[in-house]
């Protein structure tokens, strides 16, 4: 590297190498991927959300958990904000996941119609 400026640019390029270890994000998205969920497309939903996370420069954490919700609601996506509020989206598919991501994660606007009964 020939200059400080070049080093700063290089830093921006390599930041993605450790981005998954930075947990200080406004939202944490947890996809339930237990066997019920996977049979109903939870893995596709997870992959879709991971792709959106990467494409949008990691605005949130996307991770996975075992199934917590009942069978009829899978695939389930939980969104947690920094205040600890939990939003449970049910019967999610890739198209709904994209909407949830674009609206809730990117624009802080909850997609009420996909939420489980009771909202949060």
């Amino acid at each position, binding site marked *: *590297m*020939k*200059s*400080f400026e*070049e*080093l*700063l640019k*290089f*830093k921006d390029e*390599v*930041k*993605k*190498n*450790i981005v*998954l*270890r930075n*947990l200080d994000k406004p939202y*944490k998205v947890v*996809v*339930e*991927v*237990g*066997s019920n969920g*996977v049979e109903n497309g939870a893995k596709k939903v*997870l*992959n879709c959300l*991971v*792709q959106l996370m*990467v494409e949008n420069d990691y605005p949130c*954490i*996307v*991770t*996975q*958990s*075992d199934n917590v919700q009942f069978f009829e609601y899978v695939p389930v996506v939980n969104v947690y904000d920094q205040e600890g509020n939990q939003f449970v989206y049910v019967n999610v598919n890739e198209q709904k996941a994209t909407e949830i991501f674009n609206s809730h994660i990117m624009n802080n606007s909850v997609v009420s119609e996909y939420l489980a009964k009771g909202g949060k």
Partner: protein
Amino acid sequence: MERINVLVCAVSGCASSNSLLIIQKFEEMIIKYGLKDEVRIIKTGCFGLCQKGPIVVIYPDDIYYSHVKVEDIEEIVREHLGKGKVVDRLQLTDIDQKTKEKIVDIKKIPFYAKQNRIALHNCGVINPEDVNEYIARDGYIALGKVLETMKPSEVVDVIEKSGLRGRGGGGFPTGKKWHFAAIEQSDEKYVICNADEGDPGAFMDRSILEGDPHSVIEAMAISAYAIGAKLGYIYIRAEYPIAVGRLKIAIKQAHDLGLLGENILGSGFNFDIEIRLGAGAFVCGEETALIASIEGKRGNPVPKPPFPAKSGVWGKPTIINNVETFANVPQIILNGAEWFASVGTEKSKGTKVFALGGKITNTGLVEIPMGTTLREVIFDIGGGCPNGKKFKAVQTGGPSGGCLTENDLDVPIDYDNLIERGSMMGSGGMIVLDEDNCMVDVARFYLEFIVDESCGKCTPCRVGTKRLLEMLTTICKGEGTLELLDEIEELCYHIKNNSLCGLGQSAANPVLSTLKNFKDEYIAHIVDKRCPAGVCKALLHYSIEPEKCRKCSLCARSCPVDAISGVAGQTPFYIDPSKCIKCGSCYGICRFEAIKRG
């Protein structure tokens, strides 16, 4: 697409418990379960909780697994990485002592909650063998900032204002040391990193070098710019092979990126680093002996002044800083002197890394703000003495330090407070002792170490410590007299006041501090011919209480010298004192507490 990072501790402690095989197994298993594209396995530095190693951390889930074995890896990959199910039996958790509830959030676990990682900023977060990961965490940005925007004198000012003091033991203000070297007029100047960590039980510097070698390289370059040096040496003991290997990788990577060598970042500043391997002599941690060793001479100290800042390696102005001191420098440059000075006490700024060892539940590496009390470190972070044993003392400062007692537990840790109480900060070894440790024997142990390690150049250290050791051994054998205690004290002060270097001047500290704080134990050895902790063999007597003996013969069968006789099921057993070698195996094996030790 990558969505999970698995970090595996790969420094000496965990590596000796197969963490490198664990990494290999993870690589195999993610292929087997079709997760190769989604999961990256990363070797990293120390997480601190060495007692529970090998440690594996899963990101972004923030799940810590402890005591992980190679045979656990398939389950972690299949269940956790594949199905999102945390493997409960391996998850690192703790119990809240007040509510008795399980603590899962790693940041709330007492071991981590009171720590503040500045020197260990990158340890356990990045791959130490990947310069890109270091740069991603602002690595070399401090160097770039210094070269681009600061004059050398401004760099010295920032370090002076930060209040950073040497972490190797002496606690000399780092900025002042840099200032003295900077104002010297010379065609050549040098920077040395003292990585000759020699205190028994200390592994702070090794962990930093194994977990974050670039931070030391960057800091050395910054200091070289500040004082006008072009060459630096890292003096490290050859018995740290992982650290040496990672340093070599880091130096090469820095070279390849133009962060070491000629015209660094186009600034016109040149700086290079060479590694010098030490043979493990304790005295080579003393700066003048270290310089002699770098010059290819026998590692003997020489009187000061002149100080190295005036006349160091090859007779040129030289600064010598310890690994941990350097590891703080990039963070000070990045965050400012005020930020650093806001942590700690009035005269001791920042944090201190300690290697917790001895009779403590959480053996490991901790970094605490200066001013934290010994009680917080030993009981809140360290979890106290295991097996319900009573805390007796804590030894700080290695062979140059002393033993502090229960009365000192609420003392805020800083350079001055520890010295005031007869010990010292030292490089950061902290050995906890419980009721089963004999304090006379502890003093004897440290003195034995000093006798082995004394270079022999000056008489007070060479002969004085040897005589002192003989006197202590006499007491441990039960052959001491009360007059001998006075002679010991007198000799301690003689060695302290007349030795040439720091090693000799502080050699008597463990004896003086135990004499001051645990005189009753010395007297018990001399007057009662008794070792209260049951450690000094010559004063131990094993016997069997006939009324408690169940005649099971277990003790007789465990005795390696056939000193125990009796008839199984018929007569109580008996120990023949003339044959007994006091190994304690009968005491340890008896299930009925029939063996008496006294």
